[in-house]
């Protein structure tokens, strides 16, 4: 009995020795690691910092003819940059009631006015979050020595949220004209005078090619009524990352054939805000998106493109960046006949709680204006996550989209109540059932349950000639944590919503992918 005991002691001794040494080594390595962090060594070189674009409202120089001196394009772009920066520092200053940066963009006399406003607002506990969205500048005068410029900025679209003691007092959108004098001082164009003037509205006319329209509650495509029988689409290997490194147009082409053969006529795809390059959309991503759209056109599939996926900032000073993002995407494809609609954002109502309902709705409203300005040819919708939100922003959209993952039994009730209030086409943009019966969910729905769910749903939808888009074509093997979080049972559920399983075999539900 003694010998094994001794062996156990030996083993324990050796193991604890190893563990102690391991611990010491780990400790030392951590100290080394810590000593090696800190400022990047290249910072010694004081290299020029790359300036980041933080404020990008649309600015258009309507004319630069003036009696003084011919405007050079280089100078014009410097004036434009400094003028917008002046607006930016002003917006930031009024948001925080802090005068940081004002000196650089307002001359000594002009900055006094801002300081006084800041002091007053600060003492009244008022702060204002604002941004300008559009500027239309007309040059009035540029002096011969190139040091002084006067211009009129018309139809300045300004959006402001005014807070008193941190609670929102009101929200205001204004269209204003300003006459501005700027002087070149210390290499900066600084504002010397700024006078608000009467604004004479000038409307830019926007012509639609009427490829997609909504008439009498019906979606029309090329003058024919169109009923959406669609599916939310991600390639099986790259869910939530369709345009990433694994982008393979051949795989997508095969999928589109499957979708077409199944009798569907529409797909919904997702354009991610960060992945596409935020305010500076990458050409590579646009090319990929174009090839997908071209393919859809070949297969005669309509596309609902959901923008701003994984975007969640909404802060007012970020607005103009999102506007430039959408401008580059939407105007690029404004004549593409594969597109049925731009879906501004997927389930924005989920951000109401964290970002504020008012802020999110204002952002969506302005975004719908932006999209319509840049692409009058395609429809606009918002993919609400629940039927209750569907009544929001009805004036901004062409058709209503909502998602439904609740009990099938309640659907008819909910749908009929939503429908009765809304006179725009209604699209059930996401619905589905995960056949995730297994380790993580032993009592969950099986493939048979999923099939009968779709069967019943098709019946309801046929009776009501509903527009629908199911979730989704494939079962996935990987689901990024950014979608449903890190919890394995949640991920597991997301992996089994497909009509086709991970081996490429059609599941039982596939039979009911359409109503045929």
């Amino acid at each position, binding site marked *: 009995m003694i010998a094994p005991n001794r062996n156990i002691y030996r083993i324990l001794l050796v193991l604890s020795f190893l563990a102690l040494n391991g611990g010491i080594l780990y400790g030392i390595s951590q100290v080394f690691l810590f000593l090696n962090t800190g400022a990047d060594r290249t910072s010694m070189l004081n290299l020029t910092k790359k300036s980041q674009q933080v404020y990008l409202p649309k600015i258009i120089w309507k004319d630069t003819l003036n009696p*003084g001196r011919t405007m050079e394009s280089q100078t014009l772009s410097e004036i434009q940059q400094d003028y917008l920066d002046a607006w930016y520092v002003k917006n930031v200053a009024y948001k925080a009631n802090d005068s940081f940066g004002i000196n650089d963009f307002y001359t000594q006399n002009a900055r006094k006015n801002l300081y006084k*406003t800041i002091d007053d607002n600060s003492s009244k506990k008022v702060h204002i979050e604002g941004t300008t969205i559009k500027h239309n500048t007309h040059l*009035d005068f540029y002096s011969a*020595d190139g040091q002084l410029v006067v211009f009129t900025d018309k139809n300045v679209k300004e959006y402001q949220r005014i807070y008193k003691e941190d609670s929102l007092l009101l929200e205001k959108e204004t269209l204003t004209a300003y006459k501005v004098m700027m002087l070149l001082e210390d290499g900066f164009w600084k504002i010397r005078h700024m006078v608000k*003037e009467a604004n004479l509205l000038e409307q830019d006319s926007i012509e639609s090619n009427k490829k997609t329209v909504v008439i009498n509650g019906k979606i029309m495509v090329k003058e024919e009524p169109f009923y959406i029988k669609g599916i939310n689409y991600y390639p099986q290997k790259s869910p939530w990352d369709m345009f990433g490194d694994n982008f393979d147009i051949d795989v997508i082409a095969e999928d589109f054939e499957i979708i077409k053969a199944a009798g569907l006529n529409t797909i919904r795809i997702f354009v991610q805000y960060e992945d596409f390059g935020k305010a500076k959309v990458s050409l590579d991503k646009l090319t990929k998106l174009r090839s997908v759209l071209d393919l859809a056109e070949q297969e005669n599939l309509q596309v609902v493109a959901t923008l701003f996926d994984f975007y969640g900032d909404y802060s007012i000073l970020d607005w103009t960046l999102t506007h430039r993002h959408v401008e580059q995407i939407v105007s690029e494809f404004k004549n593409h006949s594969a597109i049925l609609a731009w879906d501004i954002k997927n389930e924005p109502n989920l951000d109401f709680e964290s970002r504020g309902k008012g802020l999110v709705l204002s952002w969506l409203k302005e975004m719908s204006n932006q999209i319509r300005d840049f692409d009058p040819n395609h429809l606009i919708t918002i993919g609400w996550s629940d039927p209750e939100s569907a009544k929001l922003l009805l004036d901004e959209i062409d058709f209503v989209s909502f998602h439904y993952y609740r009990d099938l039994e309640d659907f008819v009730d909910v749908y009929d109540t939503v429908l009765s209030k809304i006179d725009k086409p209604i699209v059930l943009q996401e619905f589905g059932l995960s056949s995730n019966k297994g380790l993580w969910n032993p009592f969950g729905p099986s493939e048979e349950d999923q099939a009968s769910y779709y069967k019943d749903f098709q019946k309801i939808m046929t009776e009501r000639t509903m527009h629908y888009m199911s979730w989704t074509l494939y079962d996935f093997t990987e689901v990024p944590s950014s979608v449903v979080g890190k919890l394995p049972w949640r991920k597991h559920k997301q992996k089994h919503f497909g009509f086709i399983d991970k081996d490429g075999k059609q599941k039982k539900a596939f039979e009911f992918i359409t109503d045929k």
Partner: protein
Amino acid sequence: MNLKQGIHVFTLLFVLFLSIGFTMVTIDSTDDITIVEFPDKKTVLAGTEITINYKLSEQVSAQLFCHTSYGSTIIDGIFKNGETVFKFPEYISKKKGLVDYTLVYNNKKLHTSTLEILTNKNTETHMESYLGPPSIIAGGMDYAMLVVVPTDDYDNPVADSTEVIIRHQFLNLEKEDIYLSDSFIGWKNIFSYEQSGRILVSSEVQNTNSKEYAIEVFPAQAEDFVIRCKRKHEYADGNQISSFITSAIKDQFDNIVVDGTLVEFSITNTSGMLLKTYGTTINGIAEGKMLHPDKKELWNVTAYVVGMGMSKTIDVAYKPILEDYTVVFKDDNRKIIIGPISSFMKQILPDGAILKLKIFKDDTLLETKIKTSSKGYVIFNIEQSFFPNDTYTLIIEGLGVLKEFNDLQL
């Protein structure tokens, strides 16, 4: 927990719920507030006290949101004679421009209107003037621009069509022009005259006068000119200095070019080589200097103000100072004494004249020795260690004389 306790707890909760339920009921009276009298102000002079008066159906604490040229703010109303009065803070009432205001009560916009604040002409006028560029070229093509930005005492730009008087003086001329301001400014292009000099500029708006500004008018581009040569003697002694002097260089309007204008003197000698010297002008005259050649020469000299004007070419000839000099060989021809070298008046040549000795063997140049004269003599030594005893050909060159000694035994 027995049954009795359970009933107690239930009753307690029930009463709690009821009380919450009843306290939640409040009357929201926002919709009842109506505006009985609207403010009637449309335009106000800057600097005057500005109040916006509303008569509301009830005395409630409403707020006024103001959107102005430089920013926005919220003004709290006060009650006065049954009206709700909003007094603009000074920094708003002193600044020109439209003020959009919105009456807000309980986060609702009740009324929106606009007030225009005008420049106050009754206050003292101030002026900022911007003149540029500060210097221009004579001849009437170039101009400087004067931009006058008049403001009232509160730093508001004056209204359009305010008279701006711009005066300028040049030599005997004094001129006054009246302009109407537009886009905050009055401005004038002041063109140069044919003469160079200084134009003085000033301006006046609403009886306020600016200070004096000056535009420097510089002469235009140099025209062609002539040069002459000034020298102590005409001998090529390699010692004295010749000066080349321009006439007064002028522009097409007879203005003498600016002091410091660079003139390049370009000299071509007999063998086609180019020599250059430079001078800058004072009162239009530039002087370039060059050491005399050390042999007979004919120089062609032309001067340029590069890219603008040039002189006529002049020829300058130099006479040789001597025809020949004596060469004496000593120490088995290894020591060569040249001299005495005498100059044009038989005086001993000043030190520093250059002579060359070239040593050839069978038509191959072995070495060139260069020495300068000292006290009228140049002495060359040909060392035995470098040149063993043999026959060599020696050539002596300098001061325009060339002497050849063939197959000399060393």
